[in-house]
């Protein structure tokens, strides 16, 4: 009977198309909005991805990575003295204004790293050499920032065009010259601004001698000491807060700064509400369209279901037929919707915005929700058919 149930479904192409449209649109909305949500949320802890260190140490009041509360430089010595620390390096992060050559201002994320060890330096340079970073007044700018901070000019078509900054170009931070010696490739940040790397000491100069400039300390544990173990020791011996740097969203440890950052944005911003609303909308639209279409499919076939009942099919068989029809439509609708979400995601990634992270878990969750929609649709149909009297087939 299941084969016939499918033939009944596929035989009514107009209804099937409508049903699939509803389910696919719903799956698309849920998968795409969830992926953009997780993409945006992954930007909130970008520094953890770009600046590599096993342990981060901060002021005890720090809640998330974008909210640095400056430490004293002497804290670095205290951390270095903790048993199990292989090395510890200073890190400065702050938002400052940069003045371009054309007079324009840009808000940048200034990152000051240890000049001796280059701990926290970007891993990939597309232009220049990291060693040149030791030269006076030099900075490294990320690719995205280089294009944001680019010189405005006129293209061959007469339209305004921005030329990305390159090695050798200069700009000013607080009236101090910054000469680009490298272009790096790093992940973009939630704030959307350029990352400008310099040495820790030079960063002090760029911030005009702020009293405290030590934002975080990057720490490497000795062999045989786990990051979580070292975090415990640092907190016990110094009273500072120590974090692990795991950024894999499904594998966060208790002490992960990325996890804290993610949840800080979750609870303190309207992002989850906004995207959650879109996902819920997708769910409700799916239930409304596919439920209504499936119900109308059942209504149209009601007299045939009554005839099948009269011929001796129990409600169990008919319910299974309706489930097969609803779940088959759900499966195809999910495939179409998830495929479209992937295609849109790829196009987004190629254009660089907005961020798009489609975890397998998002697909599984979307699949489960689409099957839920199919289930609800089937139940509506089953209730209708169960109320049909088999004797009604004799009433013309």
């Amino acid at each position: 009977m299941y084969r016939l149930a499918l033939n009944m479904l596929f035989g009514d192409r107009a209804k099937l198309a409508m049903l699939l449209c509803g389910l696919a649109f719903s799956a698309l909305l849920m998968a795409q909005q969830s992926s953009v949500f997780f993409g945006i949320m992954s930007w909130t802890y970008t520094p953890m991805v770009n600046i590599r260190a096993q342990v981060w140490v901060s002021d005890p009041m720090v809640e998330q990575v974008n909210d640095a509360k400056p430490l004293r430089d002497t804290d670095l010595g205290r951390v270095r003295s903790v048993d199990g620390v292989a090395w510890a390096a200073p890190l400065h992060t702050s938002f400052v204004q940069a003045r371009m050559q054309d007079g324009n201002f840009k808000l940048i994320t200034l990152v000051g790293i240890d000049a001796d060890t280059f701990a926290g330096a970007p891993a990939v340079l597309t232009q220049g050499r990291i060693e040149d970073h030791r030269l006076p007044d030099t900075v490294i700018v990320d690719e995205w920032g280089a294009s944001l901070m680019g010189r405005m000019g006129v293209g061959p078509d007469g339209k305004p065009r921005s030329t990305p900054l390159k090695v050798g170009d200069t700009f000013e931070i607080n009236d101090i010259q910054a000469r680009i010696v490298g272009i790096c490739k790093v992940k973009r940040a939630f704030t959307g601004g350029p990352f400008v790397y310099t040495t820790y000491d030079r960063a002090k100069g760029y911030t005009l001698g702020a009293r405290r400039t030590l934002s975080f300390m990057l720490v490497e544990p000795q062999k045989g000491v786990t990051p979580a173990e070292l975090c415990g020791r640092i907190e016990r011996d110094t009273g500072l807060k120590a974090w692990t740097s795991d950024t894999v969203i499904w594998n966060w440890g208790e002490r992960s700064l990325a996890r804290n950052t993610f949840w800080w944005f979750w609870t303190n911003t309207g992002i989850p509400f906004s995207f959650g609303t879109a996902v819920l909308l997708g769910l409700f639209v799916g239930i409304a369209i596919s439920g209504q279409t499936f119900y109308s499919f059942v209504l149209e076939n009601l007299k045939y279901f009554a005839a099948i009942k009269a011929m001796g099919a129990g409600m169990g068989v008919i319910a299974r037929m309706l489930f097969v029809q609803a779940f088959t439509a759900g499966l195809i609708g999910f495939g179409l919707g998830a495929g479209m979400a992937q295609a849109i995601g790829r196009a987004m990634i190629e254009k660089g915005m907005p961020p798009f992270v489609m975890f397998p878990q998002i697909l599984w969750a979307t699949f489960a929700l689409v099957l839920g929609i199919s289930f609800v649709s089937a139940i509506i149909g089953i209730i209708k058919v169960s109320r049909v009297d088999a004797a009604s087939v004799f009433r013309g």
Partner: protein
Amino acid sequence: MSHEAHSIAVRASGVDMFFGTPDNQVVALKQADFEARRGELIMLVGPSGCGKTTLLSVIAGTLTPQAGTVEVFGQRLDGLGQEELTAFRRKNLGFVFQSFNLIPTLSVIENVMVPLLIQGRPYDEARARSLSIIDKVGLKGREDGRPNALSGGQQQRVAIARALVHEPPLLICDEPTSALDKDTGAHIMQLVRDLSRSPERCVVVVTHDHRIFRFADRIAEMEDGRISRVVDDPKLLDTTHL
């Protein structure tokens, strides 16, 4: 068991059937008695509203009477639950409906296969048996087409094939010719008679169409919810009120 008792296919005795609320009750059957024998084609006739369809539904086990007994091939239906009635219909009954009730999104052969698939027969076996009966109703070559591509008479042939494909002992026909013209109706009744004729099978036909009375072995006339008389010869009936 006497020979007469053995030959009875359907027996309904003292059947009452009411619809509506106690304040606004419609009496459909009132102490109705009816008998049909194995090997015969019996027609139930009477004016609209006399209870023909209700009696047919009671015999088919799709309605349970409020009073009286119904026995079909020795099986009492009045005491059976819904699941048992469903199983009984699946095994023992074939239906031909007034409006054919062929599923338009299925092919001709798939429509015919439905009773066999409901019985749980394998798809290939159901297909082979359906092909054979489609051949017998004269629609060979049309099995993969859709029912709505066929004429009314051809659609009723498909319905007959569907009703007989699982070889049920009781064939129930509800106004099988009402949607057909005179000649097509006669052909359909001839087909029903030819294909269903078997010493063990009983055919009950509800009809208004006096042009097909000649195909009946016996005719039971209904009036006001009960059988008023049973005749062997249609000429004995007054058809002016039918």
